[in-house]
């Protein structure tokens, strides 16, 4: 009889029956995962192998026999995974194998739902009509370069807005933290105004209203690079708007640093400003970066609102280009392309935000690791 502590799963298991259960759990997980992988990757592979252009090829791929087999198989895998996973997880000997069984069951549910939905779409729906309107990549011919350029415009608008907004935001945050009400109040008014009115209203009013009412026609001409009035007005509005939101982020970041830090710095002989610069702000920066990055991701999508302004074709960002293409061709594949464009731009950024957040969190005590 060994009395040493169990160091691995195999030590805890004592009977062959238990070992079988554990192996079964692993199998269930594999079944569920492969069912889901099959329905997603399998269908996509069949479509890609047949070709994406012209759109009839996609329809043929979806209605083909291979796809039917894939869907039925993954449906079967899903059902088996669900049945065995949810039926047996309670009897699993170890926690790991229980989790595996449940995971297999959940994956099985997903595989089941997807496969069933695709089957229903195939049989009862109208794949031809759907693919013609949304995945008709033929109509995008010649637009690839335009979309790439439009993505650049989207990024320029968002980047300028974010950087300018952060500068304004920092200054505003200090104003809102002042002891003097006469200093706080105008800052508050500005912030409340830009947070309280819709961004689309701000864009339209600034562009159309100012140009007509005040005769202000913003334009930037740097020789090789020129921004027309609509583009410039949009950049200005994004800077002002982001400034209001960023200032709240900065203020919250600064205020989240405990009073003790300020007191300690002051007691070392630093003035208020020195304490801010050397003790408070460096710590606040860490807290402030994730929400600011978040703000940037949101701003990238808000740039689509410039569709209501008058942009020249070289100034189009993703959504305006899609809208123009749609009104010319009457085909919504342009919107599919715009979505892809936005995702290509935002997903890596969201990933980066998560990585930065994790790295900044290490060292601070948090609720969930």
């Amino acid at each position: 009889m060994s009395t040493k502590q169990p160091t691995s799963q195999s030590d805890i298991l004592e009977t062959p029956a238990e070992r079988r259960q554990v192996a079964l759990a692993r199998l269930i997980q594999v079944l569920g995962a492969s069912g889901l992988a099959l329905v997603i990757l399998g269908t996509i592979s069949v479509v890609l192998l047949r070709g994406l252009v012209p759109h009839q090829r996609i329809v043929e791929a979806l209605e083909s026999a291979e796809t039917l087999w894939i869907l039925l198989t993954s449906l079967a895998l899903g059902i088996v995974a669900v049945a065995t996973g949810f039926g047996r997880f309670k009897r699993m000997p170890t926690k790991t194998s229980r989790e595996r069984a449940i995971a297999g069951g959940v994956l099985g549910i997903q595989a089941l739902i997807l496969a069933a939905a695709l089957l229903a779409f195939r049989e009862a729906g109208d794949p031809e009509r759907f693919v013609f309107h949304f995945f008709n990549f033929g109509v995008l011919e010649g637009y690839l370069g335009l979309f790439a350029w439009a993505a650049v415009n989207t990024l320029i608008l968002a980047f300028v807005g974010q950087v300018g907004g952060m500068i304004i935001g920092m200054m505003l945050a200090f104003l809102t933290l002042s002891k003097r009400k006469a200093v706080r109040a105008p800052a508050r008014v500005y912030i409340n105004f830009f947070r309280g009115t819709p961004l689309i209203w701000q864009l339209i009013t600034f562009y159309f209203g100012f140009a007509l009412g005040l005769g202000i026609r913003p334009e930037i001409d740097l020789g090789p690079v020129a921004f027309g009035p609509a583009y410039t007005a949009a950049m200005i509005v994004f800077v002002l708007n982001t400034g209001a939101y960023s200032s709240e982020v900065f203020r919250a970041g600064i205020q989240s640093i405990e009073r003790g830090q300020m007191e300690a710095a002051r007691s070392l002989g630093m003035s208020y400003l020195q304490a801010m610069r050397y003790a408070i702000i460096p710590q606040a920066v860490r807290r402030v970066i994730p929400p600011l990055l978040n703000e940037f991701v949101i701003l990238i999508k808000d740039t689509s609102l410039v569709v209501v302004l008058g942009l020249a074709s070289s100034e189009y960002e993703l959504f305006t280009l899609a809208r123009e293409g749609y009104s010319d061709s009457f085909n919504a594949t342009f919107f599919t392309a715009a979505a892809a464009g936005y995702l290509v731009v935002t997903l890596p950024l969201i990933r980066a935000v998560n990585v930065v957040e994790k790295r900044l969190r290490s060292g601070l005590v948090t609720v969930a690791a």
Partner: protein
Amino acid sequence: MRRRSSLLVLGALLVLLATACAEEPADPEAGGGGETAAPTVPTIQEGVLQVGSCLDYPPFESVEGGDEVGFDVDLAEEIAGRLGLEVEWVRADFDTIFTAVAGQQFDMVAAASTITDERLQTVDFSDPYYNSRQALVVATDSGITSTDDIGEGDRVGVQRGTTGRGYAEEVLEPQGAEIVSFQAAPDAFRDLEAGNLVAVVNDEPSSAEIIEDLPTLTIAQPIDTDERYGFALSKDNPELTEAVNGALAEVVADGAYAEIFERYFPGVEVPPEFQPTA
């Protein structure tokens, strides 16, 4: 405990209030049908002709004092009346209006729409009901008298999805102009007024109306592009298209068309194909 139950009572009261206020207005079907002996035409909602329009394009369609007015408005309502239908106006953006009617979001489009081959691939058009020209609108003091004066770097405003934009791209862009597209026609005119644009290319009658009260703008040159307006209808409803065409012919023949034409284009002669024959 007490707080939870009073919340429940409050919630129930709110729900009751909401359902009471959400009562459907008087059933349109009750009023529309049965007035004439005309056979009922298939529409999305029985007895009602839902007409999509941008409603910001005088003199064809606009809103004044809460009511829809304009040449298209009066003509569409006259046609609907002949078919025993009541018109319900639906505001829609022009650059997506054809896909909207093709998708049956409304029965018909009355938005000063030129009949083009590209549009015919998505929608059906009624018979033509208006002959139109484009116009080159400029600032009065710009000295521009024709499209030849539009050159390198000049910003020309157009409305997205219009034949005016097509013309600007085909003729003016090769001359070096920069085409600036707007969601709505009035926006382009505002930009021209503000000095951001050198010119605007837009339908002539609408342009004339819009700049009537703006002495700083003028039509430099009318552009003949052999365009005709039609009502756009869904391809899935050929019976409605046929019925509309029949009613339109009737309206032209008995002089109602000429009356509406004179109301909105005073002093202009009714084109021969639209003269009454009665």
